[in-house]
């Protein structure tokens, strides 16, 4: 003998969902016409702040997918003080992230010691060719303006010295 109250309850659930969807709309979003409300720290794409990068290669080495390609060279810069020795700095030639390989783990953002990589909530960068998903440093730099400000410190948090 079938369990009639349970069956009726199940039918009620689907019927109620149908009516709510009909009157109040679905939980899904009709994407090209309307956009989803994203969470404040959404991981959409990785933005690069080029002047912070020291070509330390930590992100490239930690990347589980090996999707970050970095090339750089050493440069002499004028000394900080008069009569000092010229400084040697690393200049960034190439910083590419292959988004066809990236799995959005965020390890590169975590591991970056100089805050050169940030999460941006932008997600509309699909391409018709898979090769076009290799984004260079100019393109990664353009996303810096979309990076949200860091969340405010909690009340009572220690002030930066």
């Amino acid at each position, binding site marked *: 003998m079938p369990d009639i109250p349970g069956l009726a309850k199940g039918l009620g659930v689907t019927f109620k969902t*149908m009516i709510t*969807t009909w009157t109040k709309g*679905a*939980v899904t979003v*009709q994407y090209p016409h309307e956009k989803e409300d994203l969470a404040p720290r959404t991981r959409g794409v990785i933005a690069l702040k080029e002047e912070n990068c020291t070509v330390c290669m930590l992100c490239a080495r930690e990347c589980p997918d090996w999707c970050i390609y970095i090339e750089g060279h050493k440069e002499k810069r004028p000394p900080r003080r008069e009569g000092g020795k010229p400084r040697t700095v690393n200049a960034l030639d190439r910083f590419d992230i292959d988004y066809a390989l990236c799995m959005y783990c965020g390890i590169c953002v975590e591991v970056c010691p100089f805050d050169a990589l940030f999460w941006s909530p932008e997600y509309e960068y699909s391409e018709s060719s898979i090769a076009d998903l290799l984004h260079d440093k100019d393109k990664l730099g353009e996303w810096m303006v979309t990076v949200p400000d860091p969340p405010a410190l909690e009340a009572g948090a220690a002030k930066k010295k």
Partner: protein
Amino acid sequence: MRMLAIELSYWPLTLIKTAIVLMVIPAAAVILGYVFLLKMMAHMQSRMGPMEPGGYHGWFQLIGDGIKFIQKEDIIPSEADRRVFAIAPLVVLVSTFLLYIVVPAGPRLVVQDLDVGIFYALAVSSLSVIGILMAGWASANKFALLGSLRAAGQLIAYELPLVLAVVGVVIQANTMSLQGIVHAQADGAIFGFGLIGNPFILTQIVGFGIFLAAAQAELSQSPFDMPVAESELVAGYMTEYSGFRFLFFFMAEFGTAFALSAIAATLYLGGWYQPFFKTGIMADVMGPVVLGAKIMLIAFLIFWIRFTFPRFREDQLQTFAWKFLIPLSLVNIMVTAVFKVVL
């Protein structure tokens, strides 16, 4: 036969009737598929369903799918029994086609009102088992074979409660002709109140439940969708089919759903009958509308159940048919017969 004051001889009339039925089957499949499979199912899962094709709520989706299926290559597996493989979907579709012949949509709107109407309908509806077995066997695919055997076992098991549930109606109406059953309901009265006639759902509510459950299984709709259980059998007997042959299976499934809903509406809800126009041209005009509304109501029940419940296990499925539905329908027949004799 006089229709709109035009006399037609046998062959033109038959051609016109065939053409109408051949147009009704895809139309029925598209309507049921769009309203229930795409839209109602989506809404029950808090989705919108297709919204883009055709501009207005994706109404063109299924028609576009049909066009796509027709364009596709006709693939037949190299090991398959080519001729049987090719004919199988047609056999299933023919079974659906034959069902439509006896369903009345108005006092005169019926292809052929047979004296054994409901008996004929149930007989041709079981023809599809042959097509399904042909499809499964000819595919040379173990999933297809298992699926078709499951389908055969299930369809034969649920044929019995379907027939036995109908016997109650036949006893009460004193006829097997579907027109006769409609008239029996139209002329009936509920304790002397005869405005809406006496739809047999009131006296045959148990039979109606059994008929719906058995029809659900005949259509292989969830929870009786073991034959096409996609997690274990890919698509059952349809696994090797693509293109327009798959389209035939799809149309047959939804065309049969429409036909069985129409038969259920005729048997239990009074068919095309509405209380205002009992004869004449207005009854013929209103008939399809009224019958269509009742079909949509029954189809709603069928698809509502389909989208709510998970799949039966094979043994539960057979137990439900043999140990619950068949004894219940036998009791229903006995009670109906006793009342028929007493009253």
